[in-house]
């Protein structure tokens, strides 16, 4: 039982770690590149405007999709490794 509990704790810690990484990327592309850091990116031209504008209107959406699929694949593997997947 204690083995099981410590494995579950490791599973949860690994989950929290990947959630944190994904949410940092999530925040950097939208709140960072799209809003707060836009002035810093103003030198990079994209189709008549700058990179920050692109991230705000389209780029962050592409990243959001990639993040969800990455997380789903990662967690499904983690579930199996820790033996907590649904059979």
């Amino acid at each position: 039982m204690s083995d099981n509990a410590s494995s579950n704790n490791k599973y949860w810690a690994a989950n929290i770690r990947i959630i944190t990484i994904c949410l940092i990327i999530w925040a950097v592309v939208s709140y960072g590149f799209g809003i707060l850091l836009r002035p810093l990116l103003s030198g990079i031209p994209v189709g008549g405007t700058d990179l920050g504008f692109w991230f705000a209107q389209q780029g962050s959406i592409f990243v959001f999709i990639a993040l969800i699929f990455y997380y789903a694949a990662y967690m499904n593997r983690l579930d199996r490794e820790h033996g907590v997947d649904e059979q």
Partner: protein
Amino acid sequence: MDQYTLNLLIVGASFALYVGIAIWSRAGSTAEFYAANRGVNPVMNGMATAADWMSAASFISMAGLIAGVGYANSTYLMGWTGGYVLLALLLAPYLRKFGKYTVPQFIGDRFYSQSARLLAVVCLIIISVTYVIGQMTGAGVAFSRFLEVDVATGLWIAAAVVFVYAVLGGMKGITYTQVAQYLVLIVAYSIPAIFISLQLTGNPMPWFGLFSTHSESGMPLLQKLDQVVTDLGFTAYTAQGDMLNMFLFTLSLMIGTAGLPHVIIRFFTVPKVADARWSAGWALVFIALLYLTAPAVGAMARLNIIDTIFPNGPGQEAVLYEERPDWMRNWETTGLLKFEDKNGDGRIQYYNDKAAGFTEAAAQRGWAGNELEINNDILVLANPEIAQLPGWVIGLIAAGGLAAALSTAAGLLLAISSAISHDLIKDYLKPDISEKGELMAARISMAGAIVVATILGLNPPGFAAQTVSFAFGLAAASIFPALMMGIFSKRINALGATIGMLVGIVSTCIYLFTYLGWFFIPGTNMLENVPSNHLFGIAPASFGPIGALLNFAAAYAVSLATDAPPRHVQELVESIRIPRGAGAATHH
């Protein structure tokens, strides 16, 4: 065939399609109503979730708001997509494992408290009614245009149709109807965008057309747009916005998405925990097909409108009122587009008469103020007419707008009525109520919610998407923190969660009502809604994250000062964190 008949035909055909699919798919699955999604693959389920999610705010209103302001309204694009990341990572898999059907049930069980559950029901009702006001506003605009009546009449027609649609009820739960609605919605949105992108840039992909070259001038499209809008005294389309409010507003929409009961419910019914993760991803893919097109629709429509009014460029004479195009005449009947010949020259001068430094130039040209007022909510619906596209495209966009508004409104009304009849009356006030009585209570609460939303929709607190964004602020401040703390903390107890939700919803409501009127009734606001009155410059619609922060802080402070939750609740939290052992979702 005239446009009016064509519109009726196309809208009628789309409704016949939904009803037909509902009847066809019902035959085999009446008994499995709630488990209907279990046999459906995650891609189909994602499409249905996308239809459920995209409402009048996304379809009818959003591109118009982006068109009117430009970059600063990118907040809607990021906010209404980024929330799915939070859903997939922080809530969906765990709520699926928990395996009950409603958000108040989860809150009631996790916080082992009937009052926490009741408070969640109250929050749910406040959020959903606010959301429905926005849907009614959008549906009213759509009906007023295609039935050629004024906007108030359009709103009452919309109310009647929504009522019939929502009372038909079960239709909403059938995934294939929503798949059909999604297809109608996305085709209706994309076709005019493709045509317009071809006309303006020669690029058939609006996503890329936005960042390519304007064929007529040879300049990049966005630079051309910046130039013509600044020539008329407007802020440049790509100009920097107010960073604080953009940040908070985007955050409000994102965490609000993850706190909306009718969205969360979709993830309760997928077959497995792994599917809850995937289906959030697929839903976002289908949502993105519209959201990546929307900024192109906004920018290109703005350029087309200015080009219609100033056919030879903003430096030359404006168009004569008598020679105005048909789309302007059509929208004048709805009252959503108004012309007033202030300088009496018979031409339509459209410019920013509030811009400092531009008034002199305007006066020199003999202009006596802006003469054209265009409601932002008409832009997407008028878009095919502005670009002179064929009649069937105009009918199609009306069908798409109505699909978006009606499907979401019906879903919300079902959420409201089941919260009142089931969570409130059956489980709390009157447990011995008969099934018939419960159904009657559900219908009455639905009718009540429609009447309230319609009356408030006559003088809405904002454009459809703005009103809807208030609902997101309320969800962000109340439901999301409670759910997240319920999963990620074992220490938060009943009293903490209850006080947290109370602080979140009350502070956000008070902040909204102070500037927008008590219960959104016009004229009852205590302070005028202008930036100089806002606390620390925070706009009412951006207050959600502040409410959420107050919620988190209050819940932690109170929980730490009182006893930890009982052992069985801590075990419940342990168990929802692990996918293994998730049975089929059970209904109460």
